[in-house]
């Protein structure tokens, strides 16, 4: 695993315009960064990332299978009681999932360590499935990258194929896509998924989360007053559970992407639960609930994470009674978990995080994020990679 500087393509901003990639620069800072790339060996990809990604996904499914049936665990995971039966039903009827992203700390030598599972609303999808793919093709075509270069990235192909499966499993329904207003990054991600679904022959419509309506019978409706029967929402389940229309969810004759049971593994309580079910697994970090703090060795540094949190918000790192780093954020009312601190590897003064994608249960590619800060957040830069 190497970080190799390279000249950016001269016309990449024009290309971004052509392809509608609008959020490459956010709040005046670069988000897409092609001034360097990461190079992996095929062994590193297959043994250290691809295989553990699929294995951890299976372990997560075992967690779901225990938690959805057990009041004790549902409470530990902060799932409101009104949704317990509905989540159990979604699990038992095998509601299909679309995608997830596991975040790893990986340095190219030691086993990748799982930071968290973005199983409900993962983003940076377009950059991964398409934009870094195009960067590789251009680099090879222009002779700037070896002709033998490959990339761990079958994401777009797998998404389209998965949508074909979903179309077969969910016939005769229009798929509504939803995200919040004023979030160009989320709108971009959703547009990309709409394109993949259309390519799979699915009829799609878009509605903003804030514009979703209800009728007298409690059915959800779109801007044209059409009843919604199948929906992809780039909006966290735990938010929806607390909101006004949340109480309507269990009575809908609807299919959801991600399905309701994904609320169990997009939850940080997953981490201590995984550790208790698979202790000392090489790809897991020790993790504990607040009720198990006696297990926290004072010699080690610990990361305190809210049970519900996104994009590295409200994280606190401390060791030997001292705070080492922290991030602000709006989360944490629901409680916290503790995970052993495992420093991100540094490449040329950057902290590097590897996101490993799953489409259903198949590993589908990686994305690299870099940050000068030790806690990577939503503005961490995105860098492409190759396999050589």
């Amino acid at each position, binding site marked *: 695993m190497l970080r190799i500087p390279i000249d950016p393509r001269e016309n990449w901003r024009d290309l971004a315009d052509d392809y509608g990639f609008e959020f490459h620069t956010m709040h005046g800072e670069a988000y897409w960064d092609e001034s360097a790339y990461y190079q992996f060996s095929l062994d590193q990809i297959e043994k250290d990332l691809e295989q553990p990604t699929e294995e951890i996904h299976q372990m997560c499914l075992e967690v779901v299978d225990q938690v959805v049936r057990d009041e004790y665990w549902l409470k530990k995971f902060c799932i409101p009681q009104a949704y317990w039966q509905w989540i159990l039903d979604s699990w038992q009827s095998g509601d299909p999932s679309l995608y997830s992203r596991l975040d790893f700390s990986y340095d190219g030598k030691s086993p990748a360590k799982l930071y968290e599972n973005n199983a409900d609303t993962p983003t940076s999808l377009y950059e991964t499935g398409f934009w870094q793919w195009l960067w590789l093709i251009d680099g090879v075509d222009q002779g700037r990258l070896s002709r033998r270069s490959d990339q761990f990235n079958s994401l777009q192909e797998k998404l389209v194929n998965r949508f074909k499966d979903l179309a077969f499993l969910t016939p005769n329904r229009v798929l509504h896509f939803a995200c919040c207003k004023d979030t160009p990054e989320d709108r971009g991600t959703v547009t990309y998924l709409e394109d993949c679904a259309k390519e799979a022959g699915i009829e799609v419509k878009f509605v903003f989360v804030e514009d979703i*309506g209800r009728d007298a019978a409690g059915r959800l409706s779109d801007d044209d007053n059409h009843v919604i029967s199948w929906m992809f929402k780039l909006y966290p389940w735990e938010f929806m559970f607390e*909101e006004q229309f949340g109480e309507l969810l269990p009575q809908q004759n609807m299919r959801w992407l991600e399905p309701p049971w994904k609320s169990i593994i997009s939850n940080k309580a997953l981490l201590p639960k995984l550790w208790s079910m698979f202790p000392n697994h090489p790809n897991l970090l020790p993790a504990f609930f607040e009720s198990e703090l006696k297990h926290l060795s004072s010699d080690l540094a610990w990361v305190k994470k809210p049970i519900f949190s996104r994009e590295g918000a409200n994280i606190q790192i401390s060791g030997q009674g001292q705070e080492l780093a922290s991030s602000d954020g709006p989360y944490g009312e629901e409680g916290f978990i503790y995970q052993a601190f495992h420093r991100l590897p540094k490449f040329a003064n950057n902290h590097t995080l590897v996101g490993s994608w799953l489409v259903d249960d198949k590993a589908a590619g990686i994305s690299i994020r870099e940050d000068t800060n030790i806690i990577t957040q939503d503005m961490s830069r995105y860098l492409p990679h190759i396999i050589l």
Partner: protein
Amino acid sequence: MKRSQNIDLGRMRKPSKAKFILRPAVLAVSAVMLAACSEPEDDAIVIYSVDDCSKQTSLDQQECETVYQNAQAEAERTGPKYNSQADCEAEFGPAQCRSNSSGMFSPLMAGFLMGRMMDIGRPSAVYQYNNPSSRYHNQIMTADGRNLGAAGQRSYKVPQSTYKAKPTVTKTVSRGGFGSSASAKSSWGSSKSSKSSGWGG
């Protein structure tokens, strides 16, 4: 190879509107419109009753009953809807409309289409304008509002899209029941940090 083999770059392009207007594409655009007009058509007959179905098709009595019931369920779900009985009857004739569960009025189904390309599980209902004062008097229309022509013809040319799954139309009583957590959390974002991108992760 560990990457997608082929991505259709043409499909991935999203030309901005400004560029599209500047492009001299008049000929190309009209070609697209012509293509849209020559959508594949099906020759369909209108079935008015279960008996009519068993006489005119190869389906037996029981199959015809099932198809007829499916058509009525589709009609209930997808048919044209009016806010008042008077508005509905103005088009479809006296006593030709009834109210549905959401308090709106729909015309009674006149029959359903039967064609080679249709899905028997989802027959398309048709309606007949029966009010002599309606300018469409005696015409046959589909649930999505397409006028097929005068009633009583042997067969009708039906664009294939008529058979597509149709949305259930309802009356929305309120909106805004989702999204409040996002606005609460993003107001946090704007006050304490310059970062306020999406709600993904």
